[in-house]
């Protein structure tokens, strides 16, 4: 039984631009929040990596730690109450948590950009869209006002905002939700980052607009060969765009897999339950399968496997021992590349 958590933290020789170094790697990250009622353990040892041109979908419900991990990467956690007691966030092999402020600032925003769910509150309402887009060029690249505006129009064209030249002087509230999300994408793209972190980028949008925005994001990713971390709770969105998936629960990754395999053969009871609990558009089923119980309280994460109170397969070992993320294999023992499950009974889950 190979424990992936260990292989993932194998030493990286020669930090730099070697091909084997992923664009971004998160290693054994822990984040906790000190609140009045106690310490909320939001992230409890997360490992994942993204390469150029790759889309990693981080799937989880509220409180799973998916957004907090992203905030830790971007350095926008409120500290305090947040705290990172251990872990590394490696950008091209360099740990961002230990590097100096200036160095870190150069990576965040310029090399790694983030797109948020709520585009309206992420844009400054009193500045024109063109000014806000141009700001990136004026501040980071020192372009003149005029040049920055030309660049802003170019960006708006790139994210397919119709009549960009005419709308560059409009204010955020004059755009529809979908258009505002495009502006957010344009802003993230401005400095041609290597990696984009999109936190529920389409959740606030209507279905028909959602499809447009997701398509745009995928297209731009291909064009610039960027890495993309897509944080979402929507299994449908993931299926449409992701290459690999990491499922999070109570601050841990409970399953990782290439996108095609996880839907066909989940190897963790939580993933399996989630897949069975969503109604399908193309079939009308009988009663929905429902995962019993409630998402865990991060102030009191159950002992052993955090999912054990809700798990139909839970045994005594699940209540006492935290299952490590282990390599998933075929029945014959052949390794399934990229697949891991943090379940004591992953064999029973995947092979029935």
């Amino acid at each position, binding site marked *: 039984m190979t424990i992936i958590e260990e292989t993932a933290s194998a030493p990286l020789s020669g930090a730099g631009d070697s091909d084997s170094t992923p664009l971004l790697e998160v290693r054994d990250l822990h984040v906790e*929040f000190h*609140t*009045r*009622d106690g310490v*909320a353990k*939001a992230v409890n040892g997360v490992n994942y990596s993204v390469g150029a041109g790759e889309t990693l979908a981080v799937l989880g419900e*509220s*409180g799973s*730690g998916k*957004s*907090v991990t992203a*905030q830790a990467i971007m350095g*926008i*956690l*409120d500290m305090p*109450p*947040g705290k990172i007691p251990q872990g590394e966030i490696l950008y091209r092999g360099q740990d961002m948590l230990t590097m100096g402020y200036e160095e870190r600032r150069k990576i965040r*925003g310029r090399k790694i950009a983030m797109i*948020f769910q709520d585009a309206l*509150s*992420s*844009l*400054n309402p009193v500045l024109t869209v063109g000014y*806000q887009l141009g700001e990136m060029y004026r501040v980071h690249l020192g372009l003149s006002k005029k040049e920055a505006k030309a660049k802003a129009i170019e960006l708006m064209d790139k994210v397919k905002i119709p009549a960009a030249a005419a709308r560059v002087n409009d204010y955020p509230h004059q755009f529809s939700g979908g258009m505002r999300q495009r502006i957010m994408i344009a*802003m993230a793209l401005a400095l041609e980052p290597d990696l984009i972190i999109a936190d529920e980028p389409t959740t606030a949008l209507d279905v028909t607009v959602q499809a447009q925005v997701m398509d745009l994001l995928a297209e731009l990713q291909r064009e610039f060969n960027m890495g993309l971390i897509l944080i979402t709770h929507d299994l449908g969105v993931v299926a449409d765009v992701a290459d690999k998936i990491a499922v999070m629960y109570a601050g841990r990754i409970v399953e990782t897999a290439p996108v095609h395999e996880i839907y066909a053969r989940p190897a963790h009871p939580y993933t399996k339950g989630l897949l069975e609990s969503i109604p399908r558009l193309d079939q009308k089923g009988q009663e929905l399968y429902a995962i*019993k*119980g*409630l*998402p*865990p*309280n*991060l*102030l*009191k994460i*159950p002992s052993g496997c955090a999912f054990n*109170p*809700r798990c139909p397969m839970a045994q005594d070992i699940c209540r006492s021992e935290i299952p490590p993320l282990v390599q998933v294999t075929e029945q014959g023992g052949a390794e399934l590349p990229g697949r891991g499950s943090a379940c004591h009974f992953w064999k029973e889950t995947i092979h029935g």
Partner: protein
Amino acid sequence: MPDVTKSKTDAAVDAIAPPAADAAPEAPVAKPSTGKPRSLWGDAWFDLRHRPMFWTAAVMLFVLLVIAAFPGLFTSADPRAGDLTNHYLTKPELGHFFQADWFGYDIQGRSIYARVIHGTRASILVGVGVTLAITLIGGLLGLLSGYFGGWIDSIISRITDIFFGLPFLLGTMVVLNAFTERKVYVVIAALAFLGWTSICRVMRASVISAKQADYVTAARALGAGTSRMIFRHVLPNALAPTIVVATIALGGFISAEATLSYLGLGLADPTISWGIDISAGSEEIRNNLHVLIFPAGMLFLTVFAFIMLGDTVRDALDPKLR
């Protein structure tokens, strides 16, 4: 990058700290220890209890209230009795705790300690009285204006604007000038007359936001009547900001009373007030500082205690900080 970090992380903290989630019946999870009923007021009280600043303010105010209610417990000296021959501007005897000569004597040979103690009642009465009055007037008008909207709101809002436009101290002085005998209740009425506007505005705003909550719609859909809507649903949820503004304003009214009395337009002899004494003391500022410093210090402590209380109450009630 626009500044979004604040709200985003707030949301994240909300998300990662679910409210004392407990077991649904289908999940046999042990009952959590935080399982007892805890109202929002209870939460606020819990919060207050854990703040040293609250206790500091509370102890100070308690002592002040006792002084105001029973000044005789603290001094037996007559604050109005002057003895010019023996005590004309006698310096304080700082070792004589609670004695008549502790803080020295003023220009008329009266015990400053006794006057400071006896002046407490007027200040506290004015502060509390004005605050109660403006909370009632302003709160009621704000509630009506915010809840009913339409022309009622238009009229009340315009009246508020007019009163808001009048300069507070100047206006109060003009009003007080109309009275020859300026007792405590006259000063309270004069200060309340112009002081209710900010409470009204705060109340109106919080009523409007409380009114839009889904639970108010839910009550309406059930067929609830106006009084139930107001007193069960809107008012309890709109009260917190008003309480905060009122507590903080209380200290301000005590200062205002002192200011008016200093100017000779507020309370007047024979009422004992710190403002009057500060006024008298200011004439001796060069040679006999003690005449000024004790009433002024007492005023400062009182106002400070009320403002500190207001601050802690605001922190405890402000939902954004939770």
